[in-house]
C-alpha cells in the first residue's frame, strides 16, 4: 500500500485502466449484455439504449464484442509475453553464465530471428504452419524471445562478472541455483520493466496480425479485427470503428505509464 501511495498520478491512472480491462476480460460473460457472436439486430445500427455502441457489420452488439475482445486480445498478449519472457530470460542468463560456444550458438540463433523484420517473419511462418491461435502465440513468442534474450544476456553479463558468482561457483552450486538465486534477483527489475513494454508490442502485434486477417480468426471478438470489420463506417464519418482502436491506444499508454514508474523505482528510488 505504501508503494501505491508514492505512485505518481499517471501510474495510478495506468493501474486503474489495466485492472479494469483485466476484470472486464475475466468476467466478460457476466458483464456483457449479449453473447460474443450473437446476432442481435440489423447491421451498423447507430448508438442506442439497447446497443450503447451500436452493432457491427454482421449485426452483433459492439459493446459486448469490445468486452469479449478485452479477454481475447489482452489474455493472448499476456500469455505470449509470458512465454517469450520465461524462455528468453532463462536462455539469456544461461548464455551469459556459460559463455564460450554455448553463448555463441544461442546468440547467433537469436541474431537470425532478429535479422528478419518481425511482421514479415510472422506472416511467412503463419502462412507455412497455418493461422490458428496456438500457432500465432508460438510464432509471436519466438519473435519476441529474441530481444528478451539479448537484454537478459547483457544484464546478466554484468552480474556474472561479480565476485559473488565466483564464490557460489567455488562452493559448487549448480547452474539452476546460480540462475535463479544469484543472477535473476539482480536483473529482475530490468526484466519486469522490459516485460511491461514488450507486452504493449505483443499486444499491438496481435492486433496488427488480426487486422491483416491472420491473427485471431472470426468470429472470435478481438480489438484489432474489429477495427477492420467496421472500417467501412469511417467513410460515413462514424466514430464507432475508432473505439476498439482507442481502447488499444488507451491500454498501451496505461501500461507505459506503469512501466515508466517501475523503471523509475528500479533505477534506485532517487528523487
Amino acid at each position, binding site marked *: 500500500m505504501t508503494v501505491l501511495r508514492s505512485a505518481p498520478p499517471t501510474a495510478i491512472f495506468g493501474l486503474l485502466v489495466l485492472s479494469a480491462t483485466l476484470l472486464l476480460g475475466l468476467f466478460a460473460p457476466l458483464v456483457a449484455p449479449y453473447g460474443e457472436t450473437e446476432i442481435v439486430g440489423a447491421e451498423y445500427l447507430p448508438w442506442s439504449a439497447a446497443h450503447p455502441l451500436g452493432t457491427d457489420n454482421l449485426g452483433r452488439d459492439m459493446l459486448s464484442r469490445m468486452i469479449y475482445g478485452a479477454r481475447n486480445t489482452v489474455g493472448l498478449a499476456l500469455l505470449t509475453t509470458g512465454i517469450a519472457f520465461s524462455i528468453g530470460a532463462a536462455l539469456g542468463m544461461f548464455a551469459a553464465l556459460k559463455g564460450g560456444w554455448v553463448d555463441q550458438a544461442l546468440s547467433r540463433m537469436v541474431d537470425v530471428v532478429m535479422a528478419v523484420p518481425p511482421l514479415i517473419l510472422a506472416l511467412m511462418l503463419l502462412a507455412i504452419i497455418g493461422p490458428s491461435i496456438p500457432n500465432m502465440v508460438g510464432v509471436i513468442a519466438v519473435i519476441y524471445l529474441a530481444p528478451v534474450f539479448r537484454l537478459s544476456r547483457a544484464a546478466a553479463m554484468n552480474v556474472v562478472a561479480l*565476485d559473488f558468482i565466483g*564464490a557460489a561457483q*567455488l*562452493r*559448487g*552450486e549448480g547452474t539452476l541455483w546460480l540462475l535463479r538465486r544469484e543472477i535473476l*534477483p*539482480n536483473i529482475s527489475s530490468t526484466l519486469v520493466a522490459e516485460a511491461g513494454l514488450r507486452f504493449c508490442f505483443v499486444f499491438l502485434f496481435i492486433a496488427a496480425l488480426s487486422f491483416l486477417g491472420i491473427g485471431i480468426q472470426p468470429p472470435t471478438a478481438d480489438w484489432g479485427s474489429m477495427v477492420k470489420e467496421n472500417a467501412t463506417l469511417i467513410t460515413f464519418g462514424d466514430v464507432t470503428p475508432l473505439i476498439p482502436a482507442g481502447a488499444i491506444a488507451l491500454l498501451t499508454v496505461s501500461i507505459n505509464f506503469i512501466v515508466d514508474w517501475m523503471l523509475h523505482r528500479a533505477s534506485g528510488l532517487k528523487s
Partner: protein
Amino acid sequence: MGNLLTIRDLRLEAGPPRAPKVILEGLDLDLDRGEVLGLVGESGAGKSSAGLAAMGFTRDGVRIAGGGIQFDGIDLARASQGQLRRLHGRRIAYVAQSAAASFNPAHRLIDQFAEGPLLHGTADAGAARDDARALYRQMQLPNPDQIGFRYPHEVSGGQLQRAMTAMAMACRPDLIIFDEPTTALDVTTQIEVLGAMRDITERYGTAAIYITHDLAVVSQMADRITVMRHGREVETQPTQRMLEAPEEPYTRSLWAVRGIQKPAATGSAPPLLTLEGASAQYRGFKALDGIDLALAKGRTTAVVGESGSGKSTLAKVIAGLMAPSEGRVLWEGAPLAGHHGKRDKRQLRDIQMIYQMADTALNPRHTVRETLERPVGFFTGLRGAARRARVRELMELIELDPEEFLDRRIPELSGGQKQRIGIARALAAEPRFIICDEVTSALDQIVAEGILKLLIRLQEELGLSYMFITHDLATVEAIADEVVVMKDGQIIEAGARAQIFEAPRQAYTRRLLASVPQMDAGWLDRARRDAAEAKSLEAAG
C-alpha cells in the same frame, strides 16, 4: 593565521530541509599562503566535503547551511557560479583520487593541460605547452618533452597522478586541494608521487589542503594536521606536535592502529598446501612462472608485491578458478584438480576465499541470513533449527549482533560489516585454509584493524591457515608468520616475517620495505634517497 583561506562555523546539510542530514558542522579552518594543511579521518568523516567546500563547491544535493568561506577576501559561500568559475583552475585547483577517471581519455595530456591556461587567459597555446614540459620535468616524469603527447591510457597510474598535479599547477594557483591522490597507487610509486607533489608546492609557494586517511602520508606533506570525525573537527595541531603528543583519545586511537602485531609463531608446522613449479598464463602472457611454495598448517603466509606481480593469479590457481598451465597444486600431499569443478566437495570446503571488494563479493539482493544459510546448508547439510543456530553462531564469531543484522540486506551494511559477512560466509564451510585477497585494502585503518584482529582471533580459535595477499606492508607486519615477495610472476624472496623485515636479502625487498610510510617527519626524504639507491642497485645487479 588564515590570510588565504578562512572557514568559520561551516555547516553542510543534505536531504530534505525539514529533516536534514548534517555532513559538516561547526568547522573552522585557517590556511596561510604557502601552508599545507592535512585533513585526516575515516571515510564519511566529511574530509572530502570540507575540501570541496574550500573551493566553494558542494556535491549534488548538499548545501551550505551556515557559516562562511573566505578565500582571499572573496566569500565563496555566497559567490555566484560565474565568480567561482573564474576562481576554479585559476586560483584554486583540485587533484582527485583517481587520475584515470579525471582525465578525458579522448584527448592528449598536454592538450588537457593547456585548457586551463587558455580558458583563463594566463597563457597562449605555445606558452602553455612550454610550461607543461617544464612542469612535467619538475614533477620528475620520464621523458618530459614527449610524455604530454600521449593519451591518458598510455601512461601508468603514478605518472597520470603526477600529470594531474602538473595540470593543477598550470595557472600557478594559490591553493590546491589534494583529495587522497596516492590512495590507489602502489607503495613504491607513492613515494615518487608524494615527493614530486611536495617539491612543486614548495617551489611555487602554493598552499594546499591534503586529504587522506593515511596518517603517515599526511605527516610527510602537511605543516598542520586537522583530524575529523563525524563531520566535526576533533583536533588541530602542528604536524610535529600531532605526531608526538596527540591530545584527543580519538586521535591517539588512530595512531595506535599500526600497533597490532601477532605473536611470532614458534616451531615448524607441516605443509598444508604445496605448489610445485606452478605456472599460469593469460593468452600467452605468463602471469605465474614456476612457483614453488609450501604453505604451513595453522600459519599465515603473506604474499606481497606490487600490482601485476602475479599475487592474485596465485590465489586463483590455488582456489581452482584458473588451472595451472604447468606444475601442480598439492593438498596435504595429494594433487588437487586444476579446475574447481573437478574438485570434490571436501576439497571445496577446505579452501575458502575472502575477497577484496565485499561490495561485489556478496549478492546485494540477499539478506545476511540468506547469504549465510545457503553455504551452511550446502556444506554441512544442516536444516531447520540446527542451521539457524549455526548461522547465529557464525554471527557471534564475527562479532555482529544476530538480532540486529540477520534480516538486513547487504547494501544496508557498512564496508567493514560487509567484510565481516564475507568472513562468516567463508567460515560457514568450516574450512581449514582461507585465501584473503587484499581484504583490508578497501577499508579505513580503524575498520581494517578490527578485521585483522578478528582474523587473528579466528586463527587462534579455529586453527585456520591463511594466505594473505596484500600490497600493504603494515598489514603484513601485523598478521604474517611467513612472507613471500613476488615480482613479475616469480617468488624473489621467502622467509619468516622477522627475517624478511630485519634482514631482507633482495634489493627489491629492501625498496618495498623502505616504501612503507613511517610516522616520522623525515621518512619521505630518506625513502626517496633509499629508493634511488636501491633502484640503481637493482639495475646493476
